[in-house]
Structures are given as C-alpha cells and as structure tokens.
C-alpha cells in the first residue's frame, strides 16, 4: 500500500464522519432554536454552533446579521466554508475517487450517490426550508457509507487507516460539542437551572444519539456531570471519548503488528487512552471541564499529526 493511499483513506473517513457530526449538531441547533424562539436571551444562543467549528468570523463576513436560515445554509451548503457539509462530502468523494481501486463498489456508490444528490440540492439552493429532512438525510447517507465500509471492506492495513480517521474525528467532534456547552454543565452540586438548561442538555445528548441511552444508564433526571461522564468516560457509548480512543488504540496496535514497528503515535495514543480508561468525572470537574476538553482536543490533534508523520508522509 502507498502512503498516499493510506492518507486518502484516513482523510476520507474523517470527512465523512465530520459531515455526519455536523448534521447532528445542526439538527440539535435547529431544534433548540425552535424551542427557544420568542424567549429573551434564547434567540441567538444557537449561534454557538459556529464556536464548535471556529468559524463565527467567516459567517459574519458573509452575513452581517445572520439568522437561523443563513447559519444553516452556511454550515450545510457554503462551498467557501471548509467546515460545511458540502465541502466535507466533496473532499471525501474526491479522495474516494482517487482510491477507487482500494474501495468496494458499495462504498464508492454510496458516497458518489450522496455527492451527486448533494450537488443537485446545492444547485437548487438548499432543501427548501426542510432542514430537518435534509439533516436526517445527510446522517443516513453518511451512515450508509460508513456501514458499507464496515460490512464490505477487506480487513487489511488500509482498513486500519480508514478506522483511525473515523475515530480520531469522532472523538474530536464529541469533545467540541461538550466544550461549547461547558458553561451550562456546571460543577456537581450547583443549583440546576430552569427549563432552557434542560433543553440544552438534551440537545447535547441528542447530538450523540444518547438521550434514551442516558435514561437507561442512569435512570435519573438529566444531570450535567452525568452527561459529561457519559460522553467522556463511558466505555460502551460509541461516541464517547473513551470508546473512540479505545478504537484508535486498537487500530494503531493492529498496524504495529502488521508493520512490526512502533512509533511515537503509539505512545501518544496510549497516553490519551489511559487517561480516559482510568479517569474519574469528579477529578475532571475539579480541575475544570473546559480545561480537560481543550487539552483532549489538542492532544488528539497532536496524535493525528503524529499519525501523518509516522505513516502517511513517509
């Protein structure tokens, strides 16, 4: 396998995962905007979504006074916004096209089909107001691609790079979702706010499809520190940081075995993993949730860079 192949697959998986996460976040944003409409303060809170991607400035440059519709369009279809779903799917599809030989027809056709349809929607100027339907569609399409990869690809070295991209991106995304909302995830023991806060937490849980799971796991009212525990430390929630990092670690180990070589990436990954594996939510809150999350995002980013150096740029 070529390094360029490994790199294309790694980024293909990241782009697709990112498109799905963006759809999840926008879905929640859309919902919260509808729920808080007409309330004082509530009106512009949904703009915090731009904080997740660090693209608030770019949005303001395009729209002096962006409303929900402008925000949605910017994050979904703007081809000058590298964080948009449109750009992500396009990049994923370009990578897939270059690696057509290394993918199955199922993966390629699902991804290519998604791109062609997205393109035609973009030409029509968006989903005609049906954002809920559109975001649902994006999520489903992305899951089709990931599912086709899971169920048809040969488990060779190349697959490990695809999986690494998948889980590095997912971990990054979950951390960002939590971080943007950290200010409402008050330390344990603080008085819980009113109904707006409740919607915010359920919004966060919905982003990772974990609203029901929360109920099942904790069988209690939604409490901020438990939301954080679920999304950071739970070993069995497929979008938690712990779960993602365990996968990253696993696939790096697979590569170590296949190539009979270990690199700095393996050490970095193990370090992050042990922190999540043995971490406790009380300590995380004591030292500051925001600090913990930014530290994770930075270390995850360093790990990604290191994977590039160790495998993808040789």
């Amino acid at each position, binding site marked *: 396998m*070529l390094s360029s192949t490994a790199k294309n697959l790694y980024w293909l998986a990241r782009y697709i995962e990112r498109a799905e996460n963006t759809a999840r976040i926008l879905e929640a944003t859309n919902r919260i905007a509808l729920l808080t409409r007409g309330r004082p303060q509530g009106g512009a809170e949904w703009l915090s979504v731009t904080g997740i991607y660090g693209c608030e400035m770019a949005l303001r440059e395009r729209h002096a006074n962006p409303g929900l519709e402008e925000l949605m369009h910017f994050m979904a279809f703007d081809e000058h916004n590298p964080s948009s779903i449109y750009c992500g799917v396009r990049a994923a599809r370009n990578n897939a096209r270059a690696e057509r030989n290394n993918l199955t027809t199922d993966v390629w056709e699902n991804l290519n089909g998604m791109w062609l349809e997205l393109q035609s929607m973009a030409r029509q100027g968006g989903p005609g107001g049906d954002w809920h339907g559109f975001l649902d569609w994006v999520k489903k399409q992305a899951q089709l691609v990931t599912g086709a990869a899971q169920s048809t690809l040969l488990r060779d070295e190349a697959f490990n790079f695809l999986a690494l991209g998948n889980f590095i991106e997912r971990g990054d995304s979950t951390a960002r979702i939590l971080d943007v909302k950290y200010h409402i995830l008050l330390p344990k023991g603080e008085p819980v706010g009113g109904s707006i806060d409740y919607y915010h937490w359920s919004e966060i849980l919905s982003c990772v499809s974990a609203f029901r799971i929360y109920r099942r796991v904790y069988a209690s009212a939604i409490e901020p520190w438990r939301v954080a525990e679920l999304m950071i430390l739970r070993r069995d929630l497929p979008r938690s940081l712990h779960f993602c990092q365990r996968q990253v670690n696993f696939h790096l180990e697979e590569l170590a075995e296949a190539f009979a070589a270990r690199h700095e990436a393996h050490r970095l990954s193990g370090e992050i993993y042990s922190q999540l594996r043995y971490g406790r939510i009380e300590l995380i809150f004591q030292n500051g949730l925001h600090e913990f999350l930014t530290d994770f995002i930075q270390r995850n980013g360093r790990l990604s860079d290191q994977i590039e150096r160790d495998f993808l740029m040789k």
Partner: protein
Amino acid sequence: MAGGRFFDEMRGMDGTVREPYREVARWIEDTPDRRMEQKRREAEILFRRLGITFGAYGAVAGHETAIPFDLIPRVLSQAEWRRLEAGLIQRTRALNAFLRDAYGKREICRAGRIPEAQILQNEQFVPLAQDLDLPGGVHAHVCGIDLVRTGEDEFFVLEDNVRTPSGVSYMLENREVMMRLFPRLFADNIVLPVGRYSEALIETLKAAAFSGASDPCIALLTPGQYNSAYFEHAFLADEMGIELVEGSDLFVDESRVYMRTPRGPRRVDVIYRRIDDAFLDPLSFRPDSMLGVPGLVSAIRSRNVNIANALGNGVADDKSTYPYVPEMIRFYLGEEPLIPNVPTYRCAIAEECRYVLDHLRELVVKETHGSGGKGMLVGPAASQAEIEEFRLRIQADPAGYIAQPTLALSTCPTFVEQGIAPRHVDLRPFILSGREVVIMPGGLTRVALREGSLVVNSSQGGGTKDTWVLGT
C-alpha cells in the same frame, strides 16, 4: 479513392456474406429489432455501471462520457489473423531493433538506409537514452499498430504507436460486455479469448527488470485522475495487482527509485509509465513538470530501474519516420514486409511536396508530430478554405507534414439511428514484447460513427466494437 465502393467486412465487395460472418449475419437476421434495441439499452446500462466504476475517473462533472460501443462485432478468420499476426510480430521486432540501433551505433545510417538526421534531428530523439543497453534489447514493450483494410487481402499499416498506446481496456471491456449480453453468440462461434492480456503484460514488465530479481516490484505511473486515460491506468493496475502511482508517490535516492508506503520506502524495479517523456523527470526534461519523478532518468541510466516503454521511442513512431519502417524490416530482419505501409509523400522532399500541393483534394495530410486525428486534412471531404489553409501551413513548414492517398477503408455493419448501416473501421492490435512477442488475438476495432467519415479516433466521434478472431 475507390469511387464510393468500399470493401465491407461482412459482405465483401459483391454483397454476399463472407464466411467468418456467417453466424453473425444469421444472428442479425434472426434478432428482431425490438430485442436488439433492448440489448443496446442493456449494453448502455452495463457500460454506465462500469462507467460508475471507471468513468467516475473522468475530469469535470465526474461522469466521463464513455466511448460509444457498437453491438455488432468485427470478425477476422483464423487465416486472416495468422497473416496479420506474423506481420505485426515482424514489424514490432524491426521497430525494437531500430530503437536499439538509433540509441546505439546507428548502423542503419552507416548503411545508408536512413539519413542520420532523421534520427538525430528528430524532436523526439532523447540524447539521454544513448547506449542504454536495455534488458532483452526491448524498447517498445507495448505497441499499438493501427491497421486498415481496403480489400479481401489488402491490409495496410496506418501508423505505429510505440510510446504510450492506449485503448486496451476497451478491448477487454467490450469482450466482457458482449459475453454477458450474448452468451449464445459465443456458443455458436469459437472466439479466441483476449482476457489473458493483463497476465501477459505483467510478464512482459517483469522481463524488463534490470536486476535478475526473481520477483521485481512493478508500478504503473499515471499522470493522475485528470488524465483522459486514467480509468485505463487504474483498470490495468488493478488487473495486474500492482500499485497505481503518481509522481509524488515515488522518490529517487542514490539513483534508486522507491515508493512511499506506511511501512517505509519500497524499492521499485520496473515502472510501466503512462506519462510522456517530457513530463517524466523535471531534472532531465521539462523543469515545470509536477507529474514526474526528479532523478528518474539518472536511476535508469544507473540501471537501477527500467521503464516501459523506453525513453525516446518517439523517433520510431513519428510520422516522418513511418515511411522508413519497411526499410527497417529489410535491414534488420532481412525480410520483406508482410503488411505494407500506406504510400506516403514526405513534404520535406521538394519533389514530393510539389505533388502533394497539386493534389490536396485527393490526399490525406497529417502533421508529422500530430496524433489523435487532430491537425489532419481529409482532402475529399474538405472545403476549399480548409484546403487553402493547409496549403499555406505546408508551404510554411514542409517538414511538418506528410500526405497519403485517401484510403477506401473497409466498412462494417454498425447500429446507427436509421438502423444498421456500414461504417468505416480500423484495427489496433496490442503487441507485447518481453521474453517473447505476444499478441492477444484481435485488438481494438474503432469505427467512425458519422456517415462517410474516415476518422475513427474517439476524440473525433469514433466508437468501438468487439473484435473476434475465430478459432476455426
């Protein structure tokens, strides 16, 4: 010009069905139009599905328009093919001998058969390829030799392609689609298979390795996904199970070529390159090339890597060299050419140029460096203005042009909008030169879909047909 009378592959000159086409003719007869129409649609769907697989490599919109495929096969009898095969092997051996000589002692020039200037002054001559002494003496590992037919026993070589000939993937796919659509036809006819091509190609490439390594590492070098033949590159790499690489996937260290892999560098022994000489190595040729591999030529000269086809092959297939090929066959092999050239007038020679200028209306004029059916004048079909434009161009640069009589290219029944009608065809067989010379029976038949058109190139509205060589 044959005055509008053309030899038809199915019905000859007199309209009776020729023996090799007996079954095909019956099949056309027996198949109701409706069913044929349905099969045409099925073929389209099959190609579109392949198109999703392959055409997606196309440039802009992501859907390369596939070259039109015609359902009616072009059929050659066993005896016809044996003759052609012998002629093609002969010609390929002579071309390889010539390339060896052109980049060696140039004995053919000392013997006065070809002027030395024809080689040394040729734009395609690559001085860096002098004295390379390649494995097996092979320079043209993959050749595409274009043949045309004008009568029952009249075949001509129209041109040689010994640089990076393409189209072989169509030969393979056309057969694949035909067998899926019409299994009965293949039961009623014994058609020699072509599917072994990729295997023969990989053997040919292995034989090109410098080091006697038993399992040389081979890679296919493509200009990338925006190249019009990219799908063929991807297809062949896939079929052969070798890496499809771009220039940036390779690097040269101490005159050795390596692939970048997540395991670390991997040594490469043979590169099947589908990139032109000019873009191959920015250190030796065009410095602005982003497609090539810096240092590749030094690695070749150090005998650490070989490329197929070799550097500088253009001196052998250039249209100004073409008239000398029969002489090469006589000089190197001591044989008479089995398949003749089309008579060719070289405008570089004053006398012949005068003849050409006086007979533009009857001739086909080609640029010596042109390819793909562009930069070409088909006299009988041209307007007065086009003729006058070519007259000026030839007068300005006589050495840049050759001319040939307009050939009465054979026709083959073809589906067109009005039904089935004869359309002109040519044939490009692919010849592999490794430890031995191998040709898949048949080749790629190209068909000019426009009525009366003699230009079969796909860029000029040509299509393709499955080409059969019968086993009995």
